């Protein structure tokens, strides 16, 4: 049970008055956007303060916003990479989503929260592997899902769906070799953005 009658949003607004947060609620889920500079302090408080007790990190995922809401050829204006955290408080039975954008698009860096939630270890490795987001302070930032020696970050929007290289066994060299892909990317159903007036 919650210790006070305030909603999670009110408690966050009260506690972090000096921080530059932007809160939004959608589908009954609260999202907080926090600056990368305040990120560690913000998360530490969420985990330790008895008003929040967000003691479980359920998920951390990277997002590449470069084509968000855009048709082909248009450019996204804001920052490109973000990490989205899903937090859960078992005691208060509450969930919170935290989004933090990396300041630099060329070399995105976000501080690591591994000191706060141990379970973030592999999630940060995954985001690093798939999006190339570096987590400052992570003790063991290696690739996790892709192949040993893989080049590139496959979940970035500019990484082609079919990949860059393909692998086959070469009978002459008697070993597995890599070669540029021989297939072409194709789109069966075009992507269309519709503004459905039922939801606006």
């Amino acid at each position, binding site marked *: 049970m919650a210790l006070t009658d305030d909603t999670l949003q009110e408690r966050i607004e009260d506690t972090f008055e000096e921080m530059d947060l932007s809160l939004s609620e*959608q*589908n009954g*889920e609260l*999202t907080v956007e926090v600056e990368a500079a305040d990120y560690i302090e913000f998360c530490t408080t969420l985990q330790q303060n008895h008003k929040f007790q967000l*003691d*479980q*990190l*359920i*998920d951390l*995922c990277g*997002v*590449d916003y470069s084509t*968000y*809401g855009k048709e082909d050829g248009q450019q996204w204006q804001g920052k490109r990479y973000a990490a*989205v955290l*899903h937090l859960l408080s*078992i005691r208060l*039975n509450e*969930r919170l*989503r935290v989004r933090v954008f990396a300041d630099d698009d060329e070399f995105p860096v976000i501080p690591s929260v591994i000191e706060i*939630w*141990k*379970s973030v*270890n*592999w*999630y940060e490795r995954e985001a690093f592997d798939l999006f190339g987001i570096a987590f400052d302070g992570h003790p063991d930032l290696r*690739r*996790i*899902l*892709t*192949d040993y020696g893989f080049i590139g970050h*496959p*979940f970035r929007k500019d990484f082609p*769906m079919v990949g860059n290289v393909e692998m086959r066994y070469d009978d002459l060299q008697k070993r597995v070799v890599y070669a540029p892909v021989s297939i072409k990317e194709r*789109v069966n*159903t075009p*992507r*269309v*953005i*519709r*503004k*459905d007036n*039922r*939801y*606006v």
Partner: protein
Amino acid sequence: MSEVKNFTLNFGPQHPAAHGVLRLILEMDGETIERADPHIGLLHRATEKLAEQRIYNQSIPYMDRLDYVSMMCNEHAYVMTIEKMLKLEVPERAQYIRVMFDEITRILNHLMWLGTHALDVGAMTVFLYCFREREDLMDLYEAVSGARMHAAYYRPGGVYRDLPDVMPKYKPNRWRSEKDLKRQNEGRDGSVLDFIENFTERFPGLIDEYETLLTDNRIWKQRTVDIGVIPPDLAKQLGFTGPMIRGSGIAWDLRRKQPYEVYDKLDFDIPVGVNGDCYDRYLVRMAEMRESNRIIKQCVDWLRENPGLVMAADQKVAPPPRAEMKEGMESLIHHFKYFTEGYSIPEGEAYAAVEHPKGEFGTYILSDGANKPYRLKIRAPGFAHLSAMDDMVKGHMLADVVAVIGTMDVVFGEIDR
């Protein structure tokens, strides 16, 4: 005395006890493990990236292939997220069908887990028993969806179709004797619901059978008691969910704490462990199967009494009935649009999670208003559990690694995605 040095051992990825394609690098001091470093990703298929290029409904079959021993639960999380974003009401009958199949899936998953876990630890018989019952449940999958495993039965707005009135039977052929045929077709004379009811009546006795083999078995206890102990605080730190956190004594179950579908109307208990070792997690999962059986029974009773629709009526996001599509112009247009362009989800984001047999399985969808997800993130419980490998096996013997892998109930389809 010769100097004994640490050495590294490569476990898997083809080891039968690795449950698929786990590669473990173990740093050993004699036979004691100093450090475990799991290497995953050997089954990585980039499901999330594939989903970005497909309309929403085309990704439902991919969900089956994530955790390929609890197929319908994966679909459930995905369609729930879509329904949440569309604010779509699901008919009550469809909700009961989903809950019933979630629980059937839970039994299916736990039977697979029990069989392989026991096999790894050295008990062969349980494996055969478990697979005998799995066959009945797979037949149920087949009866409703046409596929034994990869069902694609849940759709945004409900389920693909109502439960059939007839349970399919085995047919005679020259390799099957009269006697065998009679035994195989036992309980299949009525509808699918009759067969499920028949199963729920048999199943508690069958769980007793497994328990006779294991619960008080001295070898089983020697291999699992006090192995991989995780205290409650550490379990939270490591992001454990499902039977793994309940085994450590925290009564956390999404079906009860954040009820979805009709779980708040059903009567069931949440079993918890005490010590947080492999044996307690075994007991928790066994008790969970009995609870699932109770839930299935309640669903069968409700479904018998309450016929009705199983798909939402909103034809922008759910397909129109076939007969209507053949006659009405508007339904034909809806049908065509639905299956070619799909539907667009309004801009925004949502996360929905279900109590999957392995823990909290959730999907996070970020939509920019298109007919395809901008980003789909699958939160797989096994990923968090496997990342705790190092904490669980440190200081244990090599043989205990196998017990720990078994107790985590890892399936690489969901971990590697």
